[in-house]
């Protein structure tokens, strides 16, 4: 029966149950239930059309049933999301870090500086931390958007900002003086905003080629005056990193979907 098949499809697809095998099992169980229902209704002399209506009425709102299943399997879903988030952050941050290292090494080589000294510098460690924070912030905002129904980016970004402000407050209150990569977090939120609100390609190119490197140069110049070769190499490294971030915004959702799909398939908590 088409209408009852659609009913089961809607329940299973909206249930957000992480394990694919579990979803198949629920489909099988609900179909078996409908078979019993139909057989009993036929035996009682009801017509086919009436039986379908009775099945639909007995089940009620499929979205409500799906919410019931979603609640039961909420912890598994959150666990998988956390694993996918961590894997995505590690993979994307590793790629961006490799890109940043290659750029710095190339620039050091071309300027005749010792490559290893540049790569192993404290500046590179700060940049690595910023890259990880940027990717984590980007993915965190994208994930948080799913829990809001309206003004999703704004609410997600504000939620993340509140979390970060709390971390800063704890850091200050406890006197830990940890090097929180706030610039990295801001970069992640910035690129999420670009991904969502800047649609023309020209504008995106302008952001990567002009705006993003200029922010970096401005921040560097605030700390100390720089020579022209140093400014040029810094612009180049920010340009490459900006291109890397732009690429990340294209890959993040696909990677996350692929990881979730793979995790759902192999999920042991069936």
């Amino acid at each position, binding site marked *: 029966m088409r209408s009852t098949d659609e009913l089961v499809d809607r329940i299973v697809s909206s249930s957000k149950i992480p394990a694919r095998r579990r979803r198949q099992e*629920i489909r*099988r*169980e*609900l179909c*078996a*239930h409908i*078979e*019993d*229902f139909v*057989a*009993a209704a036929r035996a009682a002399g009801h017509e086919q059309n009436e039986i379908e209506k009775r099945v639909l009425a*007995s*089940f*009620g*709102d499929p979205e*409500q*049933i799906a919410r*019931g*299943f979603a*609640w*039961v*399997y909420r912890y598994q879903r959150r666990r998988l999301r956390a694993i996918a988030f961590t894997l995505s952050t590690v993979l994307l941050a590793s790629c961006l870090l490799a890109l940043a290292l290659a750029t710095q090494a190339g620039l050091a080589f071309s300027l005749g500086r010792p490559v290893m000294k540049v790569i192993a510098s404290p500046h590179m460690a700060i940049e690595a931390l910023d890259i990880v924070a940027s990717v984590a912030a980007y993915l965190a905002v994208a994930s948080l958007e799913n829990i809001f129904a309206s003004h999703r980016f704004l609410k997600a970004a504000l939620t993340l900002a509140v979390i970060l402000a709390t971390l800063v407050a704890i850091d200050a209150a406890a006197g830990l003086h940890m090097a929180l990569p706030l610039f990295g977090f801001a970069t992640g939120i910035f690129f999420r905003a670009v991904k969502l609100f800047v649609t023309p390609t020209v504008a995106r190119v302008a952001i990567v080629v002009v705006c993003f490197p200029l922010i970096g140069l401005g921040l560097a110049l605030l700390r100390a005056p720089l020579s022209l070769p140093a400014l040029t190499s810094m612009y180049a490294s920010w340009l490459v990193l900006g291109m890397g971030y732009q690429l990340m915004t294209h890959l993040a959702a696909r990677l996350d979907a692929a990881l979730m799909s793979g995790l759902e398939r192999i999920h042991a908590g069936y």
Partner: protein
Amino acid sequence: MDIDSQFLKGSIGLLLLNLLSRKEMYGYELLQEVSRRSANSFEFKEGTLYPALHQLERKGQIKSEWRRAENGRERKYYALTTNGRSAAAKYEKQWHHLTGAIAAILESK
């Protein structure tokens, strides 16, 4: 008589564990048993029953097994675990205590 769903919500686990302590049953059979034993006073909806069964299974109070019936239809049978048996006894005791206390209040002058 229509029963407020909030009343029923907290007692679904108790009802299912109690019914399954009598014999192993599948979902449709459980719905029929609830209707029959309550003389159609209340009926579970599928949307209430199946998430509740899965929740009990996740808590380790019931276990399930697919079996093929004589008519060829496959059914998923639920049975109590040891943990479920002691939970059923505990909930039943709590229920009697609670309903006794509520009745005492309602009937008091």
